[in-house]
């Protein structure tokens, strides 16, 4: 009776997850078909690995995989370092009011959708943008950000960190708050400097949390924030070499060029690689320290 009632409580979520997550999983066969609208997905002819071949022999394959992985590695490394630094420094802020102020303000960017972030970026680097105008008036150089490829890796990294650092640093800050005060008191009695305490107490004790957070990001290394790469560069085709990632590629293959088979193949490649990476990184983390494992 008890189990039946608990199952009924879980049923709506169970069904929703079944429909929107598990049924699509069974649709991965689409990647091996040559889809046409007359025959529908079930009766279209099989294509074997043609869809995959088509993608992996194109120039795009290397480009989008490289972009996705490189951006993620940079985001993880730089983002984690800055977030930990912020958390450590926030811990040094003694005034409660200032601390609250900083935390609130650092959280601001998290609340904007990527569309709005794209508008904000445009207000600085668009044709009438504040930075563009400044460059023109003060340094007499006209600079078109939206056609210059080399600035985008820097811009996208900065924007991504700007948006997420408040969020992640507060998680790390909470981790630091959880460290017993006694360690610091003992260290202070022994005459340790602030810097020594951070290096020998705070960072080592924060390490499990840092590795969990890193592991979570590494598990998503084949996925990107669609909005960042799609809206912020305003879909300028010239910038694709540095802004096209797997997610935007799959979306464009499906919605713009209508290449369902290839889009499905790339999507499946992404899912399978993502799955392997999650399992592998969890396994490796477990080898280093059983505590670091997520599952």
């Amino acid at each position, binding site marked *: 009776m008890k189990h039946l009632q608990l199952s009924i409580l879980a049923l709506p979520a169970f069904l929703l997850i079944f429909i929107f997550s598990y049924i699509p999983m069974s649709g991965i066969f689409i990647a091996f078909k040559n889809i046409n609208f007359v025959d529908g997905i079930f009766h279209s002819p099989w294509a074997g690995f043609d869809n995959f071949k088509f993608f992996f022999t194109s120039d795009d394959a290397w480009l989008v995989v490289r972009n996705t992985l490189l951006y993620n590695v940079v985001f993880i490394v730089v983002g984690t370092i800055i977030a930990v630094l912020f958390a450590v420094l926030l811990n*040094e802020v003694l005034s409660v009011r200032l601390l609250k102020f900083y*935390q609130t303000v650092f*959280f601001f*960017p998290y609340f904007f*959708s990527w569309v709005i972030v794209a508008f904000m970026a445009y207000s600085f680097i668009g044709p*009438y943008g504040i930075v563009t105008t400044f460059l023109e008036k003060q340094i007499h150089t006209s600079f078109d950000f939206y056609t210059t490829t080399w600035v985008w890796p820097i811009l996208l990294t900065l924007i991504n960190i700007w948006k997420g650092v408040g969020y992640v640093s*507060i998680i790390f800050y909470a981790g630091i708050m959880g460290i017993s005060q006694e360690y610091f008191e003992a260290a202070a009695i022994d005459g340790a400097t602030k810097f020594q305490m951070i290096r020998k107490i705070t960072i080592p004790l924060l390490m499990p949390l840092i590795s969990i957070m890193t592991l979570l990001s590494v598990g998503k290394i084949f996925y990107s924030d669609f909005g960042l790469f799609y809206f912020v560069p305003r879909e300028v085709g010239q910038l694709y070499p540095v802004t096209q990632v797997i997610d935007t590629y799959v979306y464009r293959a499906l919605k713009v060029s209508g290449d369902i088979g290839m889009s499905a193949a790339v*999507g499946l490649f992404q899912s399978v690689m993502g799955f392997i990476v999650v399992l592998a990184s969890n396994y490796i983390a477990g080898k280093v320290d059983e505590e670091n494992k997520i599952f």
Partner: protein
Amino acid sequence: MKFRKSLPKMLIHMLFILFSLACILPLISIISISFSNESDILDHGYRLFPVKFDFTAYVYVLYRPLQILNAFKVSLFVSVFGTIVSVLVMAGISYSLSRSDYKFKNQLSFYVFFTMLFNGGLVPSYILISNYLHLKNTVWVLILPYLAMPWFILLLRSFMQKIPHSIIESCMMDGASEFRIFAQIILPLAKPGLATVALFSLLQYWNDWWLSLLYIDNEKLVPLQYMLYRMMNNIEFLTHSSNALPSGVTAARLPSESARMAMAILAAGPMLAVFPFFQKHFVRGLTVGAVKG
């Protein structure tokens, strides 16, 4: 001595104040642009403070606000209705998962968790939703896919696991059904957790452009974020026939630069307004989420 001690402190505050500025200035800049005169923008570029205040953009955007009002209604309905239903749906499964004496606890946990590890990809979902469920161009497609989010479910489960089992047991002794325990004991006790998840959910629904980008072509169902995206390159679709323009605005000189930003403010505003009230819950949610589940 005193100087040596206070210098690093000053550096810390300088760093934080600079970053605070970086967080606030983009917002100020779009506010300022939305209040700028179009010809000032064309002459001087965007400014952090308007050369002179001008409300033309808002007059233009709100003059015949039918479409905006409609987009606002869609966003509001999706956010409020979606949040309420999703919190209830997720609370149900989270409660079952939080019960260590529930027979299917482990299987069900795996069932939820596995979707975070593997997914079928965009194309199968897209075909399912548009060709088989026929949800394309309905308001439901903006709500249903986000109702049961695995991450939120696990978050809520961690909250509910903290409720002492003895409370539940004593209710069962008194003969209360699981439904009654859930509705009268668990939901009230888990309120802080529910508030946190509700806020995450609200933010997700309000800020979502993904589902509308994929599934909405019908003008009547365009939510604010998607409308804003479509205005990125093209403000004209907001333009009604030129004889319906407010006085002082001519079709040849639409305040397009400032109107775009005025729209951005209208889309971002409501979330910024509720944000300070919920920050406490938000931070709590983040810290619980960081603990392994």
